[in-house]
């Protein structure tokens, strides 16, 4: 039975993981995401579905546990917050290199360093530009509500197994901590060991039967083989761009100006759009739901329509670089965002739009 509940984002994600039939969760406490493992430990999912939950000795151990379970075809996940994700990056790079399906959740807090425990979106570069070493990308989902915290768990595993690649859910301290109503899906059965062996027997290390042995590794010492591996990964990322891009357009049809924002900033920007329209300024909102793949063609299309774009993010300006790349300098693109754990208000966003974009009039860059 699906169920309507009032829950914290972190708790909704944890409950959704149980209901999605996830096999294992490995984590380590860090604010503001500790509710994920606390909820799981309290719920005893081992009794409910047989899902394994283990508190690892470190973030590093946790991501490598995910790697271990994923290498055998199990649905495994971990969650953390910014400094913890930095520790996991080596393991994430290994997951990508060894082509393993897994889900990682980052409930972002302010940085750099130990930073703050308050919400932030300053891990955008880390999430979409690699973060770890080598030529890899993560499929990145950015939830903007408690409902999406729940829904994206299953979506993330679907993508992870479609591509045999790690998927990141990039949330933030605001979405993780706030309470909203959420509709939880029905309990899905976990796959049996026999089903896993049958379905993933061509790659998973579940014990060598009469088939050839399966090996999970990211090592290819022969340059030609390694280059072929990189090309294979690049093909996956191209396919993700073609088949699995997700975004939402709000009030864009008649827009003169555009705000681009994801996650909690998209929620706040939506209110700013309303305030602008009350003042007679036609503003639209493009919300990337996936940060990689990025809705670059949609942005380019909108750049032919609007007079300027404001990229809103709880950071010193990260996504703005991708917005600028996408619109090919057709219109002015500026960044607005608070940092240090301070959350911008709709009024601040509207004010920034007026100051940084509208004030400068109808500037259109000419093609060189």
């Amino acid at each position, binding site marked *: 039975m699906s169920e309507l509940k009032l829950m914290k984002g972190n708790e909704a994600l944890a409950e959704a993981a149980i209901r999605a039939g996830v096999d294992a969760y490995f984590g380590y406490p860090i604010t503001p995401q500790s509710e994920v493992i606390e909820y799981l430990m309290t719920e005893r999912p081992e009794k409910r579905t047989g899902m394994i939950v283990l508190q690892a000795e470190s973030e590093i151990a946790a991501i490598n*546990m995910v*790697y*271990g*379970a994923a290498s*055998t075809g199990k649905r495994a996940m971990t969650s953390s917050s910014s400094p913890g994700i930095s520790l996991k990056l080596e393991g994430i790079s290994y997951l990508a290199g060894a082509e393993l399906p897994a889900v990682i959740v980052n409930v972002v807090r302010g940085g750099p360093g130990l930073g703050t425990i308050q919400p932030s979106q300053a891990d955008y570069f880390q999430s979409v530009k690699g973060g770890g070493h080598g030529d890899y990308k993560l499929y990145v989902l950015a939830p903007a509500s408690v409902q999406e915290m729940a829904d994206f768990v299953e979506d993330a595993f679907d993508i992870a197994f479609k591509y045999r690649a790690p998927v990141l859910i990039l949330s933030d301290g605001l979405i993780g901590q706030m309470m909203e109503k959420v509709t939880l899906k029905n309990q899905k059965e976990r796959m049996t*060991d026999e089903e896993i062996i049958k379905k993933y027997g061509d790659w998973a*290390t579940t014990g*060598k039967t009469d088939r050839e042995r399966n*090996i999970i590794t990211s*090592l290819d010492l022969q340059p030609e083989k390694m280059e072929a591996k990189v090309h294979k990964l690049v093909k996956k990322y191209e396919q993700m761009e073609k088949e699995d891009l997700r975004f939402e357009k709000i009030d864009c049809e008649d827009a003169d100006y555009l705000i681009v924002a994801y996650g909690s900033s998209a929620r706040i920007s939506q209110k700013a759009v309303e305030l602008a329209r009350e003042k007679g300024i036609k503003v639209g909102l493009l919300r990337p739901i996936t940060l990689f793949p990025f809705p670059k063609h949609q942005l380019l299309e909108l750049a032919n329509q609007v007079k300027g774009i404001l990229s809103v993010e709880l950071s010193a300006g990260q996504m703005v670089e991708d917005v600028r790349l996408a619109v090919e300098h057709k219109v002015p693109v500026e960044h607005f965002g608070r940092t240090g754990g301070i959350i911008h208000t709709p009024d601040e966003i509207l004010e920034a739009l007026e100051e940084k974009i509208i004030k400068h009039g109808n500037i259109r860059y000419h093609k060189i």
Partner: protein
Amino acid sequence: MEILDIIKSENQVFCKTKLMTDTALSYCPGCGHGTVHNIIMEVIEEMGIVEDTIGVAPVGCSVLAYEFMDIDMTQAAHGRAPAVATAITRTWPEKYVFTYQGDGDLAAIGTAETIHACNRGENIVVIFVNNGIYGMTGGQMAPTTLPGMQTSTSPYGREIETMGSPLKITELVANLPGVYYVTRHAVHTHKHARKAKKAIRKAFENTRLNKGLSFVEIVSNCNAGWKMNPIESNEWMVDNMFPYFPLGDIKVNGKLK
């Protein structure tokens, strides 16, 4: 009569285990790794558990162990094999899971993963090959490098005052309640290799009985890293490594010796 007329399968009294592939070993001639690989594979074959065994390879000289062992294997990041093995045994409790790790992997970068997998008593086998040096990267100091021993990063010999003492991690983990069996062996003679094989068999039997973690250290040589020929290196090992890392059982059936 040609030699190949004599070497016929019906005349063969000994052959390598089916679980070693025909891939030429990447190890230096005289290195102990090949023997350790072989006895593990013999144990798995003799126990008839190949379908239920998953190995975890480390980073180091044995990073390519999966090229030589004809079983399902996962290669772990440097030092993380016990964490990888933890997840495999937790999600596949019926399987036999072992890690194969060197001293740098297990006792330096992976110390936390080693200690905590041991402390949780994960139902796995840890094979620890200790040759007191980083072989793959070209002979740097390891956590188990002996006092005064020269390596490329301790060119004047390991100074205890600044570089610390060789870490006896095997004795350390033996004190943890989750660890059921701890033993130290060598493979430089047939006699020693047979004993080491018995210990590995016992370790896998412990997994079958769900007894917790079994830890088998093999003190081995690195003739290339030690800059000796294979015979000299084995003699040096007996004279210098064995006094510091004495062979024998340290913990059996959950009880310290």
